[in-house]
């Protein structure tokens, strides 16, 4: 039986519903059925009972509308009387404040007045609006099908299949230029190549952010925190990818007392005289980790509170990060300046699908005990 057959008996009674009862063992006893309690008796408002209260409510509504007019005028006055003066930030604040207050008064005056009018003075009789079926009536549904069929017949949409198919093909091709255009917004370089390596190279000197001044090992006194960029980065212009490169290569340089510094075998040569350099980009989602506590040697990420222990290969001691911060192997050159031995041995920052393919064979991973010993 199709849906039409089932609904056929309803036809004669028009929109009135005839309920088809299916006994599934869940019939409700009529005596238990919920009864519509109807609306509570209508209570007249104070404004309906007392003429003086009605007049007062009328005055209040008028008052709100007058306040709104005052607000509109005040906004114009404030704009002229409290102008924004170039270079004077306090004038911006005053201008914003007075404009905002007066425009708020103008809009709220209309809104509150209208609401007050409706609540206190307009008719307060309760009105019931019945819900209707979403489904259209059978005649209107049949008529809709008729219109479609007539349209198909007159246009020949089904009959002239060549025209129809070429139209579908043309519509299908329209979005293609957009795909190509938007695809070209991505970096021309392969995305993975762009983030898998930084600009650190063997022998590249460590320099201060942002001046580019070189750093001697002796300058890094105990407790210091140096925010470091590669020396050539200071010469790169903002339009030449300065921020892109900085976001990859930024490094924090600190000196840990020898008795506090724990170095795993294979990484002893990566520090110089207790001076260690770690990527400043969090391994969780890439925020700059730079909240260095010089007594605990903990590095805190301000975004999600991941905490790294710098004295212990920047292993994670708290928070959502899963991997230690990548370490930049450093040494000094013959002039006493700190230099990188090479690029990071693993991609810096947050994980990405191809990350493991770009871990260098020379990378010295921390043992499971080193990384999982979370506080």
């Amino acid at each position, binding site marked *: 039986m199709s849906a039409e057959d089932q609904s056929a008996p309803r036809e004669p009674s028009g929109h009135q519903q005839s309920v088809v009862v299916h006994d599934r063992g869940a019939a409700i006893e009529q005596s238990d059925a919920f009864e519509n309690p109807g609306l509570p008796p209508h209570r007249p408002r104070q404004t309906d009972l007392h003429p003086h209260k009605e007049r007062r409510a009328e005055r209040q509504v008028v008052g709100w509308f007058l306040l709104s007019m005052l607000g509109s005028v005040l906004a114009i006055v404030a704009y002229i009387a409290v102008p924004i003066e170039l270079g004077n*930030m306090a004038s911006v604040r005053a201008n914003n404040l007075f404009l905002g207050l007066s425009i708020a008064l103008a809009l709220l005056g209309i809104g509150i007045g209208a609401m007050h009018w409706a609540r206190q003075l307009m008719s*307060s009789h309760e009105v019931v609006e019945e819900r209707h079926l979403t489904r259209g009536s059978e005649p209107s549904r049949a008529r809709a099908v008729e219109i479609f069929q007539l349209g198909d017949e007159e246009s020949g949409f089904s009959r002239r299949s060549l025209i129809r198919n070429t139209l579908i093909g043309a519509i299908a091709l329209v979005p293609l230029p957009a795909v190509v255009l938007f695809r070209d917004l991505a970096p021309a370089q392969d995305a993975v190549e762009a983030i898998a390596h930084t600009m650190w190279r063997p022998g590249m000197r460590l320099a201060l952010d942002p001046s580019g001044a070189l750093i001697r090992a002796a300058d890094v006194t105990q407790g210091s*925190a140096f925010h470091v960029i590669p020396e050539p980065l200071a010469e790169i212009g903002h339009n030449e990818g300065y921020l892109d490169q900085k976001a990859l290569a930024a490094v924090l340089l600190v000196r840990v007392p020898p008795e506090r510094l724990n170095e795993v075998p294979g990484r002893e040569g990566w520090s110089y005289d207790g001076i260690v350099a770690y990527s400043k980009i969090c391994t969780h989602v890439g925020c700059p980790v730079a909240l260095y506590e010089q007594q605990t040697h903990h590095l805190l990420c301000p975004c999600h509170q991941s905490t790294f222990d710098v004295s212990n290969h920047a292993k994670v001691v708290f928070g959502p990060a899963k991997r230690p911060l990548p370490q930049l192997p450093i040494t000094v050159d013959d002039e006493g300046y700190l230099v990188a031995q090479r690029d990071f041995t693993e991609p810096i920052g947050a994980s990405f699908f191809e990350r493991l393919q770009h871990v260098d064979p020379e990378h010295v991973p921390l043992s499971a005990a080193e990384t999982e010993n979370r506080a």
Partner: protein
Amino acid sequence: MATRKKTGRRHPLASTALLLIGLVAAGGASAAVGTIANANPAPESAYSQSLTVEDGAELFRANCATCHGMNAQGTQNGTSLIGVGAASVNFQVMTGRMPMAFQGPQALKRDPMFTQEQSDAMGDWVASLAPGPERPAEEWLDTSQVSDEGLANGGVLFRINCAMCHNLAGAGGALTEGKFAPPLNGVDAAHIYEAMLTGPQNMPVFNDANIAPEQKREIIAYLRYLDDNPSVGGFDLGALGPVSEGLFIWIFGLGGLVAVTVWLTSKPN
């Protein structure tokens, strides 16, 4: 009489008014008590004569040696002060962080216990034990010498070296395990300089090779600029960013919307 009948009924705003009066009274009393409790007898007149290094040693032994040892060598309750320099002593003593009120995650700022002369005498004595960072020269605290360009540079240096802990607006922020970076608004220029130079508590040291004295002066000038140019947008809600702003909009913004909705749909009596 119809109007007489009202006497038995409270005005609808009576409870709100009573609550406000109560809050104002309690707050006022608390503030008054606090002012009296914090009132400090001004001792400066008694010590206006210059104090010697020996006086500094006496003051140190009387007030600091319990934790730092008779010769500032340190004990299990306090670090060694050999080589911390006069700058460190001036910062810790004149911001009231030392003597420490109690052992905790970090020493808290409060009214200083000593006069500038007493602090200087102790600083001179500590500096005589071993060389260390000296109190900054007046030249490096005079922010009137900083040009507009220097001011902008101070902002850049502040954002690179300081803002991650102390907040972009210098409003301070939380660190780990109860430690925090204090707000920087209104802090004395000498104390800002000394904090950068000596790295008190968990703050890193920013020595002159890292941030030169001229640059430290630019950073101080930038902080002064932040003090003198309050938030353009009006209430900055502590300048703590999404935390305080989010809290405000969730409680007062959404709360206000709920209140308006309740008002719109309620029946007038």
